[in-house]
């Protein structure tokens, strides 16, 4: 508006009174002014497109780096070996007692199988080097099989075992064969054995969802996100159960019932400020309150959920208030006009109409909580937890924490695991945001 006024003023001043109104628009000066305005218009458009392109390039680079690094995390190298379940090794006494079976040396079975596969290996050093081709989790896999089915003892079976992380990285090309031997963690001889096994069809890289379905481990080839996914789910469950009812109730009261005075203004300012408090502060609060004062367990999703609920509460309140505000006053007046009580107005009319907005805000708050690590650091959720949590008071880790811990580990295999884990986390975030969009589209009413 002001622009137009300013322009018309300059036109008035610049154009001599003598000219007729129609010829005013045909002067050189006028054409120059129009050109200038068009230029600044297109400059602005280009700036806008530039800003969007920068954002898009950054996003595409980020996502493509993650995907390019991470897609190999969904593949896993496996070795097929003919394992003889030698009774002499597993159960020398022949009693089939659970103690004997569980304490047996299953690595020896693998050693024997490899010795059979490579009869030419004789030196002690080489025998040790060839065992390194197989994941250190393989003996536990055999142990589990035998414990589940003791009848295996005495038979010979072809079993698919996981390859070690170094072999896996070699097969995927993350360890370059062209490097001098001293700079690799796989020796030339080991490469020779890997190629021999691959040549016989006993070794190959296959699609695998282990990174989703397995529990956390310190061996990159064994590690998965299962425990963290369940931990995140339990934590968010607690967050939702606490933050949504409290947040919506607070918003309804402040928006619909509270008198407008200095106190409610003060509360409003405080809520807005709380939304901007750094999340680590909530972690400190959780440590002081929930752990030290109430004596709740460390590393538990219960406490994590409570801390994250405190963090998301202001977001839920602000989003819910905005949604309630967007319901037109005519709805309230009409309901009051036909005799509804103020509570009925809210529960029967305003709240249902505001629900899509409230849900959207809540889900975005939850997405925020899903990606948070800082507050969880203080309450001990940044921990190595190998067992799957079964209740909210069991120790657990969450998705972003596990990503952080994988990223700082030394072995090369963690690079792709970390990127794959980021892909999983992003998938969950996209699903949650998608749900928010869907709910808004489905239930939104326009006036």
């Amino acid at each position, binding site marked *: 508006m002001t622009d137009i006024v300013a322009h018309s003023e300059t036109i008035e001043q610049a154009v001599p009174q003598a000219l007729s109104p129609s010829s005013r628009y045909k002067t050189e000066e006028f054409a120059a002014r129009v050109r200038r305005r068009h230029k600044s218009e297109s400059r602005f458009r280009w700036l806008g497109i530039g800003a969007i392109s920068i954002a898009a390039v950054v996003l595409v680079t980020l996502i493509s780096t993650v995907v390019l690094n991470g897609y190999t995390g969904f593949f896993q190298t496996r070795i097929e070996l003919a394992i003889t379940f030698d009774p002499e090794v597993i159960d020398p006494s022949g009693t089939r007692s659970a103690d004997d079976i569980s304490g047996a040396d299953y690595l020896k079975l693998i050693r024997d199988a490899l010795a059979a596969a490579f009869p030419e290996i004789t030196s002690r050093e080489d025998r040790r080097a060839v065992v390194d081709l197989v994941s250190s989790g393989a003996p536990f896999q055999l142990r589990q099989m035998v414990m589940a089915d003791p009848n295996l003892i005495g038979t010979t079976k072809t079993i698919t075992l996981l390859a070690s992380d170094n072999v896996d990285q070699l097969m995927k090309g993350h360890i370059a064969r062209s490097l001098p031997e001293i700079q690799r963690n796989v020796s030339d001889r080991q490469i020779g054995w890997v190629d021999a096994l691959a040549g016989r069809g006993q070794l190959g890289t296959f699609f695998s969802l282990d990174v989703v379905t397995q529990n956390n481990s310190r061996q990159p080839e064994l590690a998965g996100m299962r425990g963290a996914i369940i931990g995140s789910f339990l934590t968010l469950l607690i967050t939702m159960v606490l933050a949504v009812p409290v947040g919506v109730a607070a918003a309804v009261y402040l928006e619909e019932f509270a008198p407008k005075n200095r106190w409610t203004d003060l509360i409003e300012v405080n809520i807005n400020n709380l939304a901007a408090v750094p999340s680590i502060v909530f972690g400190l609060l959780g440590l002081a309150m929930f752990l030290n004062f109430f*004596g*709740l*367990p460390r590393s538990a999703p219960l406490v994590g959920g409570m801390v994250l609920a405190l963090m998301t509460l202001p977001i839920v309140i602000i989003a819910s208030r905005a949604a309630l505000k967007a319901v037109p006053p005519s709805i309230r007046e009409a309901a009051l006009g036909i005799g509804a009580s103020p509570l009925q107005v809210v529960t029967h009319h305003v709240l249902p109409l505001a629900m899509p907005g409230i849900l959207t805000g809540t889900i975005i708050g939850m997405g925020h909580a899903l990606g948070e690590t800082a507050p969880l650091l203080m309450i001990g959720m940044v921990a190595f937890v190998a067992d799957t949590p079964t209740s909210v008071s069991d120790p657990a880790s969450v998705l972003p924490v596990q990503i952080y811990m994988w990223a*700082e580990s030394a072995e090369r295999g963690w690079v792709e695991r970390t990127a794959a884990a980021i892909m999983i986390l992003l998938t969950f975030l996209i699903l949650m945001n998608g749900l928010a969009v869907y709910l808004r589209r489905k239930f939104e009413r326009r006036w």
Partner: protein
Amino acid sequence: MKTKSIAMGVVVAVVGAAVSAGAANAQSRDQIRIVGSSTVFPFSTVVAENFGKLGKFKTPVVESTGTGGGFKIFCSGVGPQYPDISNASRAVKDSERESCAKNGVTDITEVTIGYDGISVAVNAKTKAFKLTIPQLFLALAAEVPVGGKIVKNPNTKWSDVAPGLPKTDIEVYGPSPVHGTRDAFNELVMDVACVTFPEIKALPGDQKKKVCNTIRDDGAWIDVAEDYALIVGKLNASPEAVGVFTFFYIDQNKDKIQGLTIGEVKPTFDNIASGKYPLARPLFFYVKNAHAKLIPGITEYVKEFLSDKAAGPDGYLVAKGLIPLPADMLKAQRAQTMALAK
């Protein structure tokens, strides 16, 4: 109304669950809890995982809090709500023992698990150079002796420290003070080097300690809080940067970085194990004796940690980068921890 009462019911249920969980937690726990050093963390977690896979006990929960942070939590009391074991990349300090004792944690058992080398590393493509411990001090201390006086460190390039060194800026990424690795670096490099300078030796006690243990803060030394992998990435990206961190990261990233020779000794597995490499330090964990009877599995965990298949010369911890103890010391550690079982 109905939704509101449901919501209220759920909130009450959660608070109830919280209170009962708190009460249950105070009574008992069947899972070992470990806190402490991020250097010991990889070893501790591997033992925890293998220990859990044996199926007799739950897998211990291991937190990486840094040595100092670990002792702080470890020393806060005796009882199921406090951790049982604290990992440490340096020995416990007297001040920490005192704060432990104040909270009733009087009997703790120190277990030495092996050695770790502190490496000074550069990009694998950079031409390696040799350093001595006094040269490291001259490059990194806040104050250094120049011409008989103690002055603010004037060296900006490595070649200012000694003529044979490269003409590149001193840019060193190293552990921040929360790390035990930093304490070990102070002890093994700074303390050792500073007594070789007569000017510093002549200083009175307090001032000497300050000069010896203060690392420069003018940007030549860059603190890295937790993440050694970050230092590896940094070295990989910039050919002039130098990193200080544990030996294992070099071993795992040989194609990207290389360890510098310190005092004519290369940082290799054998040199650290034999004690030739000067920047080697022992790693520990501390067990609360009172918890050995309280929490099931602690003695078994310690036993697993010190077993031949873990900390022995061919054990799985060695594959993870631990430099093993000599056989007689390992035996002595085992004998010493037998007392826990009683």
